[in-house]
């Protein structure tokens, strides 16, 4: 009785018991024999060849197909090149004169929002609620992934949590080349992400792209150094705190904006001088909040799909 319970426990903890191994061995022997018998008979050989012909198309129409696919590719290349040639030049003044909406944005974004990067001015000021919904969509996606994939901690349920951190770290097999490269690269990547977020209102970039860069940097750190090192500064609690706080701050600042703007109250936040980092009123904090949400979301999705926990 004791032995069988031990075997059961062994099986649960993903070990293998001798009986099972024996069964697998006999099964693979049978499969090999079958394969040999199949190879010996000429009919099976013929069938296999016809299957190969069907799959790889080495028959009559092969040159036609190759020629037609090459022709299709060349046509596509020519079409794309023609489109690129037809595009307006970079920085041309009369690019989109026909469209009233874009003309309004191009002419008035700077005076309304104080952002030299028109795109940030549009997505965080004119369409701020749209971006708010987008960051909430990201948060909801992570929540549903957590509901589906997050495993219970080991103390609560000993049978569900099979892989311990040590086993996973061993499976990772820390690579010397990767870890020594990421020692140089990880700080640079983080710095670049922060630079993109902070410069969102004056140069191309912003919360979404900078947050994606930071999230990718965290993923690189995880794959280079393993779970133990990253748990020093990024755990489930960190994710919860940072994400929820950033979304709350975003919502409250946007509500403030909405109330003051809709009721025509004077906004006390000045727009600052365009072109400096502290300009554009609420754009800089909004960019930071969006960046935090995106970075946390990217890292969390990765680690949940990989391990089911942080």
């Amino acid at each position, binding site marked *: 009785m004791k032995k069988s319970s031990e075997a059961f426990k062994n099986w649960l903890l993903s070990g293998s018991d001798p009986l099972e191994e024996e069964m697998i061995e006999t099964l693979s022997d049978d499969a090999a024999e079958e394969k040999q018998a199949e190879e010996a008979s000429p009919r099976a050989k013929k069938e296999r060849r016809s299957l190969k012909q069907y799959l790889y198309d080495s028959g009559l129409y092969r040159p036609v197909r190759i020629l037609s696919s090459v022709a299709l590719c060349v046509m596509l290349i020519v079409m794309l090149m023609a489109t690129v040639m037809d595009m307006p030049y970079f920085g041309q003044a009369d690019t989109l004169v026909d469209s009233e909406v874009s003309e309004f944005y191009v002419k008035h974004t700077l005076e309304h929002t104080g952002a030299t990067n028109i795109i940030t001015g549009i997505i965080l000021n004119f369409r701020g609620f749209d971006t708010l919904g987008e960051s909430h969509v990201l948060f909801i996606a992570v929540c549903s992934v957590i509901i589906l994939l997050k495993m219970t901690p080991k103390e609560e349920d000993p049978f569900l949590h099979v892989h311990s951190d040590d086993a996973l770290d061993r499976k990772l097999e820390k*690579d010397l*080349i*990767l870890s020594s*490269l990421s020692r*140089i*690269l990880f700080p640079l990547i983080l710095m670049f992400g922060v630079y993109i977020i902070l410069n969102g209102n004056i140069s191309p970039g912003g919360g979404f792209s900078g947050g994606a860069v930071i999230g990718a940097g965290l993923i690189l750190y995880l794959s280079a150094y393993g779970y133990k090192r990253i748990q020093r500064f990024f755990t489930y609690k960190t994710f919860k705190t940072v994400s929820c706080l950033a979304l709350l701050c975003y919502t409250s600042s946007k509500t403030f904006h909405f109330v003051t703007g809709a009721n025509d109250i004077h906004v006390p936040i000045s727009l600052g001088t365009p072109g400096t980092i502290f300009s554009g009123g609420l754009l800089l904090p909004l960019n930071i909040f969006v960046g935090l949400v995106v970075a946390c979301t990217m890292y969390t999705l990765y680690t949940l799909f990989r391990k089911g926990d942080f």
Partner: protein
Amino acid sequence: MLEIVRFAVVAALLIASVVLESFAIFGVNRFRFALNRLHAAAIGDTLSISCVILAAIVYTGFELLSLKYFLIVTLMWMTSPVSGHLISLLVVKTDEDIEKEAKEWKN
């Protein structure tokens, strides 16, 4: 005179990168084993891209923008071999017929 030389250098570099990239595409589609294909893809990843960026550097002249181009090349040359190394490790670990393939390639 200088303009003509510059144009010629840029054109030569771009043509070289196109040729190298077509080698890479041909190899990726033509080789049978994953490790060979990886080698072919690495040509496009490192040499061909660096040729394009070098052409851009020559085209803009030597200023701040060309320094940024140079940073792109440095980053590509640092990261692309490492990712290739990791993928090849994965191939060696997961491919069941790796020894057979290696023998076949040698002969």
